[in-house]
């Protein structure tokens, strides 16, 4: 079973995301901050990190950069209310981002995308 780390400073969103992902058959670990995420990742390797961007303290972007530097296979996807341009998205994808998912999302869309990433 694939393992996914959900990171968001909003607990409700974390809970929702976990519920949906678990319904989709994934194992989920959570973190409420970028720092917590990195910390947990050290002892708890996952297949995918679902990152909120706008968090106090370490932003999703910082976490992404961090993870990139590490020599791991873990995939990273952003989850945000912020819209981005196609161009920007492409740049991110080129840099190794797995996907950019918009919030709010619906169950189907999220699971489809996650499945696609972790297939």
């Amino acid at each position: 079973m694939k393992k996914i780390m959900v990171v968001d400073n909003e607990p409700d969103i974390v809970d929702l995301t976990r519920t949906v992902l678990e319904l989709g058959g994934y194992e989920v670990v959570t973190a409420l901050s970028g720092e917590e995420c990195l910390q947990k990742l050290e002892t708890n390797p996952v297949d995918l990190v679902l990152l909120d961007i706008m968090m106090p303290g370490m932003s999703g972007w910082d976490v992404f950069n961090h993870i990139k530097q590490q020599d791991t296979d873990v995939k990273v996807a952003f989850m945000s209310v912020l819209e981005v341009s196609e161009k920007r998205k492409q740049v991110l994808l080129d840099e190794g981002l797995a996907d950019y998912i918009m919030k709010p999302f619906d169950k189907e869309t999220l699971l489809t995308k996650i499945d696609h990433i972790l297939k």
Partner: protein
Amino acid sequence: MQQNAPDIVKQLREEEQLGILAADDGIFSHLSQIHKEPDGEEEPTQQTTIAIPNITESDLKELYEALVENSLEGTLIIDFLGNILYANKALFKMFGYDSEQETLEKNVLKFIDPGYHNKVIKDQLKVKLGKGGYLSTYKAIKKDGSTFWIEGIGTNITYNNKSANVVYLRDVTARINTEDKLASTESLYQTLYETAPIPYQTTTTDGKILNVNECWCKTFGYKKRDVMGNNVFSYLYEEDREKLEKLFTEQLKKLKPEEYYTKSYTISLTTKEKTEKTFLVNNFLHTGKEEDTKTVHTTLQDISDQKEALADLAKSEERYRILSETLIDGVFTTDSLDQFTYVNPSLCEILGEKSKNLLGNSLRTYFDSDYIYELQHKLLDVRSDHSTIRNLAVKLKRSDGTLIPVEINMKPLRKEEKFIGIEGTIRDISDRIKIEEELKKSERLRNEFMNIAAHELKSPVTPIKGYLDLIRSDEGANERIKNWANIALRNSERLLLLVNDILDVSRLETDTMTFNMVRTSTDELLKNTIEDWTPAIKEKQLEFKVNIPLHLQDILADKHRLGQVLKNLFNNAIKFTDEGYIGITACQKEDHLQISIEDSGIGIAKNEAKKIFEKFHQADTADNRQYEGTGLGLFISREILRKHRGDIVVESKPGKGSTFTITLPTLKDDEQIDEETLSKYTNPQTETNNHPNDYLPPLPEKQTSVPTKTCRQEPESKNDADSQVQDSVFDTPPNPSE
């Protein structure tokens, strides 16, 4: 000559010897004296020889002959019939003849101008009758026919009991000419003086009247004969005689030796009838040949009328000057070379330069480089087309280098159709600009807030929507619960739509919505639209009337945004139509096209039709239809269309239906789309709708703006992939995958 000398000559000689002809000629008197000397007696005898030592009689004869012959004065002897008996060399030379022969025995009248014949005859008669001599001037005729003037002294001479007329003649042509000239000049002067249209007076330096002309008399009301010889100041300067006398004298004194004219000055004089008039006075001092004969010629020009006009002019000029000097706006005039000829204090302040430094400087010196082309262009319009420029908002460069925002008005100055300069005003609008910028800033802040708020809203909406969705799709939940969840979900989605709409509105109002303007095939756009909306229309069992020409010109558009507009219109049409049809028509006009979306729905009341494009306007229907919209759709649609340089209008009849018509400019087939074309459309600025906590660093290359991606739940539209975000306008070529 000696042998042929007529008796008359001999007689002359003899008489000269005797001293009878008491000519002033020195020789003769001398000779007659000498003649007297030897005897000491005066014995007038006819045949007396002159006992002059060493001069014999024949010598004397010869001498006399020579004297007469060679005299410079023409000597002529004529008989009383006018025949010439003798003419000396001087004489016939005077008349242009070579020898005496040509004149002898001819009548003297032959050599006199016919107009003077009578005079000659009269003079001769006088002599003949023994009534004395004469001194006359005649016009004579030379051998070559030309005329000249002679003056003759004539007298009687007797010899051998014969009488004749001797005339001493002189050529006085030059003198006559001079006299003539003088006379005519004199007469001209007199005429001019008398007939001059302005008063002339001639006085001594003390003011004694030597002459006045007719105009003077008429102006002052005095008769010439009454004033001649009196002091002019007694007539003209009744009121303040002393002052005016002094002025007169002073002016004359001031004259340097080589000067003749005094400076002109104006004075008020009173006429005989006690009328006061104003005159412009000019004095001309004339010094005669003898140093102490000085006369003053004075002209007095009546400028009473002019004075009044000048006073009025001065008054109005003064008013204008005061106005101009105290005006807050800068006022200026330039010459035809755009150089300042007048600047008021305010303008000096605006440009930060003293007036003396501004004058003579070109207006163009103060054009800021950013506006130089525009200003030059406008200046040219003023000069060549004589157009007036109003409220041109530009920046000028002050002397210290700083820029000042101003509003300029310019008007050409013309003199007989020729451009001679500019007059204009310059208003400092720094305050206004500041206020405008403050407004813009506060608007941006407001929109910033809206942005933040909108984004913040999305966060809680996520779990709301998420859990409702889960409830709805949960197997364990009962129908009733699922139903409730459905309703709640629908509303959360509506909330989301509202949030996105608010974001769109905010972007449209701050000009931060980006548009990826590309050449778009209208044909394809419409084809897709029709495909997309057919299901929904059919679902409501409405007819879909399509009336589109085979081919329409391409447009320059952001496909995503246009899609948004069309979606809004179709949604509305379907929403408000229960039965009948939805129609789409299109037609091509010369440089634009029209797309109409028609429905047979409930229509819009006339007073509402104006307001439907306003923000948050919801149709006032009795039922619940309004709850399905955000009230922002039409506002956003219109704004998007306007940013496309198009527009939208509505026609509606309550109960019958509505027609929304979009207009969009079309592209010519070969029209190129370049930076210049694109710049006519809303320039996307750097994106400001990032969340303040957003730590996304700028893109490695160009700074992109972040356009919107709709998060709307579109009816499983296959456009999903397409409705992805668009790039900023300035990004390199759009995807060819249209």
